[in-house]
């Protein structure tokens, strides 16, 4: 049941109407029921993995909390650490087995010229998201950042809440749990705001992402057939596709949650206005970034062995390097995990390392940058410098997309080389852009994509400047708003791609 299908819309309507009609104390159970119906509709065979994660998370969380109350601090910490490691091994082990076994087999076959058979493994939808969310909860209980949930079915809802289970955002128990379990009454203002957000999400997904997708697929699928200009069109198109797909999906997910009165954490904050790669990761897939920061980056950086390494560097090199080098290493490790999280392929590992190394080097050179800017009389707050930083970051991000989208690392490198050495600007006017009409309605696709990018850019720019255009819509007369929504509802299916013709969401495969 795709998020853009009619069936899903009917499903959501039924869930929302029922949610506000039943007695309030059963609302969370209603959500749980619909969450499992939704998950089962995506494929019943993998629900066992969701149940194992839920049961192990509940039990370990519950016992850790009991032990914290019954035993003295040091003894409790020792026992709880064992319980936590057990749960982490079980859940991340399950994720690793299902996601990376065939990648390992392929590499062993290549390296050792062996002929190991691939496993027939079905990757449960949303496993990366619900595993991270559940393990984040356990770490929070371990660190006493939140209380353990005592009702198993409530925890089951936290793990499986249906709008977010397939592609996030990765929620925190302290914020999401409370909202899931409290009762809600109809808030028409929030309903309307959520409805508009859903429409905007469908716009980004169906008009932008799904329209540009065939062009991107064609270029990245046949890199040797195209010159440098096409490589640029391909990678810029991929930027638009990925942003439209993922952030559009997030808008739909947040909008649907809003219909139940539940506010999910933001996953996007206008990432293409970022002024550095670090800033980009503060604006792109925010909940994965904060998850990695809280549960991987800080624990690695503050671990005993890293502390020893830091002290060694402080004694043998310098105080500053002893402080910064361990942070850079932890950072590169985090982005290596981010890369691996995206998929079982070397290209994702390179993609992660590329980001990690850039951020690590920027961290090491912070003081040098400060000195250079002073020497060159660059004002941090000048518009020119700000725009230069945005363009520089956009370029660096687009380079990373080559690794993310190309089929292999070899293809990515070939395409980058082609971009520079085989540019052929004449293809812009000699008719080559039509690609021999191998893609249906390609001229219209170009026009629609450019227009949609402009719409998204203008809305993002207004949001960036804190001009909330959407707020003024709510002051219009209800009849005018109704007509506006009808027009948007009519335009999206007319200009956009039908879900039957195009694929699902990119991040739902992670």
């Amino acid at each position, binding site marked *: 049941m795709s998020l853009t299908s009619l069936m899903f819309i009917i499903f959501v309507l039924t869930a929302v109407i029922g949610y506000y009609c039943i007695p309030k104390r059963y609302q969370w159970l209603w959500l749980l029921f619909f969450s499992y119906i939704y998950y089962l509709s995506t494929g019943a065979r993998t629900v066992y993995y969701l149940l194992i994660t839920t049961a192990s998370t509940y039990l370990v969380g519950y016992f850790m909390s009991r032990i914290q109350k019954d035993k003295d601090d040091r003894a409790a910490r020792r026992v709880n650490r064992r319980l936590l490691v057990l749960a982490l091994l079980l859940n991340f082990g399950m994720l690793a087995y299902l996601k990376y076994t065939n990648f390992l087999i392929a590499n062993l076959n290549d390296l050792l010229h062996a002929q190991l058979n691939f496993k027939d493994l079905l990757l449960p939808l949303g496993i990366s998201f619900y595993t991270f969310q559940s393990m984040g909860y356990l770490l929070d209980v371990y*660190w*006493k*950042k939140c209380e353990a949930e005592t009702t198993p079915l409530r925890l089951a809802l936290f793990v499986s809440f249906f709008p977010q289970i397939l592609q996030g955002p990765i929620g925190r128990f302290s914020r999401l749990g409370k909202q899931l379990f409290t009762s809600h009454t109809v808030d028409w203002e929030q309903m309307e705001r959520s409805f508009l957000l859903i429409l905007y999400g469908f716009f980004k997904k169906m008009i932008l992402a799904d329209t540009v997708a065939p062009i991107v697929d064609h270029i990245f699928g046949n890199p040797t057939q195209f010159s440098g200009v096409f490589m640029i069109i391909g990678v810029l198109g991929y930027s638009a596709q990925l942003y439209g797909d993922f952030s559009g999906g997030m808008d739909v997910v947040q909008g649907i949650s809003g219909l139940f009165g539940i506010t999910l954490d933001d996953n996007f904050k206008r990432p293409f206005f970022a002024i550095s790669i*670090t800033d980009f990761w*503060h604006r792109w897939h925010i909940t994965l970034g904060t998850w990695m*920061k*809280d549960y991987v*980056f*800080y*624990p690695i*950086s*503050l671990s005993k062995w890293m*502390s020893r390494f*830091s002290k060694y560097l*402080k004694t043998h090199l310098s105080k500053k390097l*002893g*402080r*910064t080098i*361990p*942070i850079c290493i*932890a*950072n590169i490790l985090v982005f290596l995990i981010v890369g691996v999280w995206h998929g079982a392929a070397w290209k994702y590992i390179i993609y992660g390392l590329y980001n990690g190394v850039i951020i690590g080097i920027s*961290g090491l050179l*912070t003081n040098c940058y400060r000195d250079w800017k002073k020497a060159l009389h660059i004002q941090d707050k000048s518009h020119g410098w700000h725009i230069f930083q945005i363009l520089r970051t956009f370029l660096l991000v687009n380079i990373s997309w080559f690794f993310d989208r190309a089929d292999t690392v070899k293809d990515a490198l070939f395409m980058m080389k082609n971009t520079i050495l085989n540019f052929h600007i004449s293809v812009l006017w000699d008719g080559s852009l039509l690609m021999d009409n191998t893609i249906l309605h390609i001229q219209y696709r170009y026009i629609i994509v450019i227009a949609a990018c402009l719409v998204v850019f203008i809305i993002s720019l207004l949001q960036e400047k804190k001009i909330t255009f959407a707020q003024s819509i709510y002051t219009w007369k209800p009849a005018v708003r109704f007509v506006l929504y009808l027009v948007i509802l009519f335009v999206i299916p007319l200009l956009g791609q039908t879900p039957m013709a195009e694929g699902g969401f990119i991040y739902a495969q992670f």
Partner: protein
Amino acid sequence: MEKLLEILEDIQPEADYENCTTLIDDGILDSFAILSIVSELEDAFGVSITPAEIIPENFNSAQALWNMVERLQA
């Protein structure tokens, strides 16, 4: 407290530590700066800071940082 302010100035000079109470909320201190501060605090005050302590409430102002140091020293 003076020593703490010196450390903060050294790591991130472009902030008003006397008055700002939103060092984390407003993104003035990023994760790189936070860990640099942690490393310096551990050396200067002999405290051990765990991941559980890295929450906005402990890093949003110089005073909050000082309170954390005092609590960990006790």
